[in-house]
């Protein structure tokens, strides 16, 4: 049970054989999920909520990519689209070389053996009329992995693995605590031996002490089974603890992505800076600058032009150009060059953080008055 030190965070231990292959397990390109807004007498589509609007990322075998952001930013929809629990409007999803969006019927079902999900709410994601054993067993039977006594034995081993005493096998969800139910949710996902798990806020509904138990369990399982996680969360302290890389979402777009180490030390997107500075620090003596954002997240049915974060942005060089250009995700940052592997480059969507491909001349032609300048407000340094 050695601790994973910060120097090895990019290489999950124990999964060496699995990570040696440098091809991504999951590759998402320009993913869009738009939900139609209906209205009027005949319920015709009036417009669309752009829940996810052009998102690209990779997840490598054995690693944890965290998708973070506030409610409505599209992180959950992204996770569900990857599993085809909601249908994407555009873009490509490739899992282990297979085009996920092209699959149907039996092929999709076979693929789902490899990709599973752990839900946020362990209270509503378990069938109240099924015992723990039958819940965990269901996947084994559906995917023809085991039957009869063999299935029972596997259920027993899974319960051991997630830290539930075997006597719970015959109980019902209401007899279990929140943490225990979440362990059942994890056992159910693991039953079919997936390589990839979407963890959708798996610890948000749990108390601090139980949350720690479940985080440790997820890390142990990743190490032992070489699992890759897409970890969807809003709690930045949990994310820093568990993620190898982080992608920050705002209003349906990824606005910054980097290794966890770099993102927390040198956030460059003003939104990420505000998000990090808003995390309450459990140290009454801590003195730090807090960026309190004004206003709320705009509606994804009517996003602002140009940079989606513009109306709440605190970058000193914010000007008219921000409304004109949709900021591309560009490589930036002092820390990104040093010793980072190719897939953890630091990408930031902000035309006011240099260097940027949207040149000053172009910006000025669009009415810009303030030249891009590196802006890094003081952040908590414990």
């Amino acid at each position, binding site marked *: 049970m050695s601790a994973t030190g910060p120097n090895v965070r990019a290489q999950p231990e124990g999964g060496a054989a699995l990570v040696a292959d440098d091809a991504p397990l999951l590759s998402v390109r320009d993913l869009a999920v738009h939900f139609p807004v209906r209205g009027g007498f005949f319920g015709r589509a009036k417009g669309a909520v752009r829940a996810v609007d052009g998102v690209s990322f990779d997840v490598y075998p054995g690693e944890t990519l965290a998708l973070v952001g*506030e409610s409505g930013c599209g992180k959950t929809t992204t996770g569900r689209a990857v599993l085809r629990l909601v249908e994407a409007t555009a873009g490509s999803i490739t899992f282990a070389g297979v085009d996920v969006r092209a699959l149907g019927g039996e092929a999709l079902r076979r693929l789902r053996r490899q990709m599973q999900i752990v839900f946020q709410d362990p209270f509503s994601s378990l069938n109240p009329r099924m015992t723990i054993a039958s819940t965990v067993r269901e996947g084994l039977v559906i995917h023809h992995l085991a039957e009869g006594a063999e299935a029972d034995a596997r259920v027993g081993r899974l319960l051991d693995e997630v830290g539930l005493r075997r006597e719970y096998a015959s109980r019902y969800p209401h007899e279990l605590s929140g943490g225990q139910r979440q362990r059942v949710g994890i056992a159910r996902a693991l039953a079919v031996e997936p390589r990839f798990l979407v963890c959708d806020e798996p610890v948000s509904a749990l108390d601090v*002490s139980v949350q720690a138990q479940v985080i440790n369990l997820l890390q*142990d399982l990743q190490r032992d089974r070489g699992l890759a996680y897409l970890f969807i969360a809003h709690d930045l302290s949990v994310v820093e603890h568990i993620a190898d890389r982080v992608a920050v979402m705002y209003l349906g777009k990824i606005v910054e992505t980097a290794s966890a180490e770099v993102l927390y030390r040198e956030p460059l997107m003003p939104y990420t800076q505000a998000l*990090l500075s*808003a*995390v*309450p620090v*459990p*140290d009454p003596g801590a003195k730090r600058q807090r960026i309190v954002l004004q206003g709320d*997240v705009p509606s994804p049915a009517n996003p602002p032009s140009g940079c989606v974060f513009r109306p709440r942005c605190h970058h000193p060089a914010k000007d008219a150009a921000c409304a004109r250009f949709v900021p591309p995700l560009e490589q930036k940052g002092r820390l990104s060059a040093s010793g980072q592997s190719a897939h953890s480059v630091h990408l930031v969507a902000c035309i006011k953080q240099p260097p940027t491909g949207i040149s000053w001349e172009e910006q000025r032609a669009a009415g810009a008055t303030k030249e891009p300048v590196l802006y890094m407000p003081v952040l908590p340094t414990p």
Partner: protein
Amino acid sequence: MSETQPLLQLRNLRTTFSTDAGDARAVDGVSLDVGEGETVGLVGESGCGKSVTALSILRLIQPPGRIESGSEIRLEGRDLMSLSEREMRDVRGNRIAMVWQEPLSALNPVFTVGDQIAEVARVHAGASRAAAKAKAIEMLRLVGIADPEERVDAYPHQLSGGMRQRVVIAMALVMSPSLLIADEPTTALDVTIQAQILELLRDVQQRMGMSVLLITHDLGVVAETTSRVIVMYAGEVVEEAPVRDIFAAAHHPYTEGLLRAMPRVGAIRERLTVIPGSVPPPTAWPTGCRFRDRCPYSWERCEREHPPLYQIGAGHVSRCHLAVEPERRARPHIPLAAVGTADAGALR
């Protein structure tokens, strides 16, 4: 505890719910004070009794629940337990106000937010319709809602979560209460909105000079907002201290466990320390120390003897026998609740 008479005094508060499984002693002998103008944090995990404590202060416990006789609740020296329901209604809203976790369920969906704020002024202060509306606009401005003249006519569903919580706070503040009880006021909100609401609470608390009892499970929120912290576990107060002491020198193993179990931004990424097991059901609190099965220090005495609140330092008390046998802290063991689980290895 202040030298002058505290604003709120609870003595031996016991609130019990009759259930099929027997009496659930949700709050089991809680004594605490909130001083004039003070912000006190009440922390603990679900099921520890913190919300029932808040409801008991307001005497909002409905059958099958009851506040046991012998419980004392005093506000500004007045014994709330002896008040009639009518007198109690006057206390609620006028002297004590409450902000709930889920703002949408605290608001009536079929009335405008202005009507709901104005109703408080009309019921409690007998304000005229026009005066009440003017008051509603003033309150919306106070809690930082832009365009209050327009927003006053909005319905709850037209507002974002953060704005709804501002409206709930505005309703709570109409009568300038002396005590505001905020039960997980930011738990349902996003982190950037949480920062706004906490700033608002600090701001109105200072401007209006009221006292705040802040109920939360988030120790980060406690560190940034309160001056004194009361930790509850299994229906009891297990530790109470000035906020700095709680974070720098927690005494009770439960408090210590909570602090260690929390992932922190910027901390070295080690395996998280867990508190094994979970809170026991309130129908069957363990004898002796209620935390002993989950505790890495427990010994025979903890099973035999229910620990009293020991004085640890100035304003610092802890319900743990380690106060009299401190040397045992140096010899932790695997807690009973962890034996045979995957967490056992991680605890050493």
